[in-house]
């Protein structure tokens, strides 16, 4: 499945089984197992109509996971996603009102707002060299404070039904599945776009920047711009998720709460390494599906929903521990596990003091690299 992503994998592929038990493939195996279990517990789930509903339910989570993927793979964090969703939901609710004709202008405004948030996150992270954890935490506090200030903390009127259709409706009267929700189509488009982006030169430098920012700076990559674009992609993906969630959930300042952590969980489940440099966007999306499938399975298995967090906690620790162990095992082999295009230098010992703050290959423990 990942045979074509890098030449290194091409060499060692051939053995698909190996890929399936490797960290980037394990999530697909886990997802398949979970889906089979759900189908056994509840055979209706395997019906195409039911399954497409499941995909619709995952769509916002999967979309934020795509955005978070780009930020994490570049070595940063985006904690502002949930609050961007809340802000966008409130913007849509308050500005569109019952007037369908305002949908398009407000949608454009929301996109503009999303770009602005990403731009601020990215520029403060890269140019002012504030760790992204802090920048996006500040952004989260500021946006949530603003949202609660505007709404007074209570639910407000839903926007026009035409706008909510994006999250709720779809193409009706389709054979086999009955309805193809817009959310599913949007997810497919977003995923396709994400794959294209990650294969483009930009996507490759993004991963390379996450792996080793110093070598990329020396090889002429505009690090600040690459990372800023990642933040913009992230807040745009929150915007899309917000548009979808207005359809399901209506307008309330708590919509989107916790999405940043759900997105990070999904991305990490997909074998993407915190600290950057390694990971595959499709696996991140599979991580989102796995998480939701897990919750669905618990639901069908009559596990009280209050235990959800516990299971989520165990799963993410297990997933990351597994990939850490697997990466370590692979590192002992002859090939370095980092991507080839990063052009690894032997050590960072000789870099100027200015750059000493950035992470070297051996410092995966680091939270952030401060630009």
């Amino acid at each position, binding site marked *: 499945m990942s045979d074509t992503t890098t030449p290194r994998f091409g060499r060692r592929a051939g053995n698909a089984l190996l890929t399936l038990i490797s960290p980037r493939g394990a999530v697909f195996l886990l997802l398949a197992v979970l889906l089979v279990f759900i189908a056994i517990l509840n055979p209706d789930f395997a019906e195409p109509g039911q399954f497409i509903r499941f995909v619709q339910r995952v769509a916002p989570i999967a979309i934020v996971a795509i955005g978070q993927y780009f930020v994490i793979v570049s070595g940063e964090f985006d904690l502002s996603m949930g609050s961007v969703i809340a802000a966008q939901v409130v913007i849509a609710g308050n500005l569109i009102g019952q007037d369908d004709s305002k949908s398009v202008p407000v949608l454009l405004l929301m996109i503009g707002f999303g770009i602005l948030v990403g731009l601020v996150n990215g520029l403060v992270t890269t140019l002012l060299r504030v760790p992204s954890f802090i920048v996006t*935490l500040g952004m989260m506090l500021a946006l949530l*404070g603003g949202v609660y*200030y505007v709404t007074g903390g209570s639910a407000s009127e839903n926007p026009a039904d035409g706008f909510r259709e994006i999250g709720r409706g779809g193409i009706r009267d389709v054979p086999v599945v009955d309805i193809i929700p817009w959310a599913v189509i949007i997810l497919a488009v977003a995923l396709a776009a994400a794959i294209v982006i990650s294969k483009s030169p930009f996507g490759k430098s993004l991963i390379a920047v996450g792996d080793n920012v110093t070598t990329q700076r020396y090889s002429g990559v505009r690090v600040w711009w690459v990372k800023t674009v990642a933040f913009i992609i992230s807040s745009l993906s929150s915007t899309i998720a917000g548009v979808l969630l207005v359809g399901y959930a209506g307008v309330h300042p708590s919509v989107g709460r916790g999405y940043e952590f759900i997105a990070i969980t999904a991305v990490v489940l997909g074998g993407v390494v915190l*600290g950057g440099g390694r990971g595959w966007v499709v696996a991140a999306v599979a991580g989102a599906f796995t998480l939701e499938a897990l919750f669905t399975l618990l639901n069908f298995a009559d596990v009280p929903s209050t235990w959800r967090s*516990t299971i989520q*906690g165990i799963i993410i620790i297990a997933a*990351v521990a597994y990939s*850490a162990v697997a990466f370590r095992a692979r590192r002992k082999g002859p090939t370095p596990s980092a991507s080839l295009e990063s052009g690894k230098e032997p050590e960072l010992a000789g870099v100027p003091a200015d750059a000493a*703050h950035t992470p070297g290959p051996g410092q995966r*423990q680091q939270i952030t690299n401060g630009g």
Partner: protein
Amino acid sequence: MSTATARPKRRIRLDSTVIVYLALIVVIIIGAILVNTAGRNFFSLGSIRGILTGMSVLGLVAVGQTLVILAGSLDLSVPYVISLASLLAAETMRGNPNNMAQGVLLALAFAAVAGLANGLVVTKLKVHGFIATLGVGLIIKGYLDTNYQGSAGKVPAAFQFIGATGLGPVPISTIIMLALATLVYLFLKKTRTGHHIYAVGGSLEVSRLSGLRTARPIIVAHVICSVMAGLAGLLLASRLGVGSPTVGSQGGYDLLSIAAVVLGGTILAGGRGSIWGTIGGVAIFAVLDSVMSAIQFNPFLKDVVRGVVIVAAVAIYTGRRVERRRARFATKETAR
């Protein structure tokens, strides 16, 4: 915001802790002016007591968080440790003063186990601190959600006394917090493990190659951090009179304590920073809160101000070209 005065003299190397306290003084001056224009007295006893009380809980958590961040990890599980510690204590005490010691010990033992779990997951399973502590926190959250619907237990009046009284304007809780901060400061300064925490946070690889057992300082940092969170839970139980399953997460102590640590000049990547800087950061938050309450600022917009202050402060620290490394092989920076 604050360092404009310190900037022109580039030759003078200011310790980041000094900058934090300069910032604190600036915040106090601006705050006092604002509060006075609103017709109130910033330096009244009630106001000072309010600020010091506001510092105590966040201070306890942030001191622990400082250790973990210095060691190159971080702790997102604190809100749930706080909540469960408060519940365990209140349920064990059940209003009976004779059970106080048991309740306190049980809560702290639980906190220590949670910290040990965090530390072991980070060091032995090689899981990133963010994920490890998020995971442990979620595990505890699931337990809380399943077993507690609302506040439970009751602490005896004698225990409530701790959270309610003070020496003059200084609450007992703040004194306890500052005493523990001093202990942790001495631990970092005087003990081998304390030095190793800095080393491991500075570079795990270099520490390992220098022959350190890198796991131990990280585990110790996590255990101390969780125990501090447990103490914060006890303090909250003492204030509320009951244990509450949401007291930690409502306070947002995970992200706020990290923000306070970073505001105090500690570097998020680990290895550099100080306890007193963190206390300064906590004090800045408490003063901001007090000022905004006194001028009746919209409570929702408080978060906006907090967010902007955090980012602005860190931008100022990282923008400066000062020596951010600790002085080595010397007791004072003047030895340079």
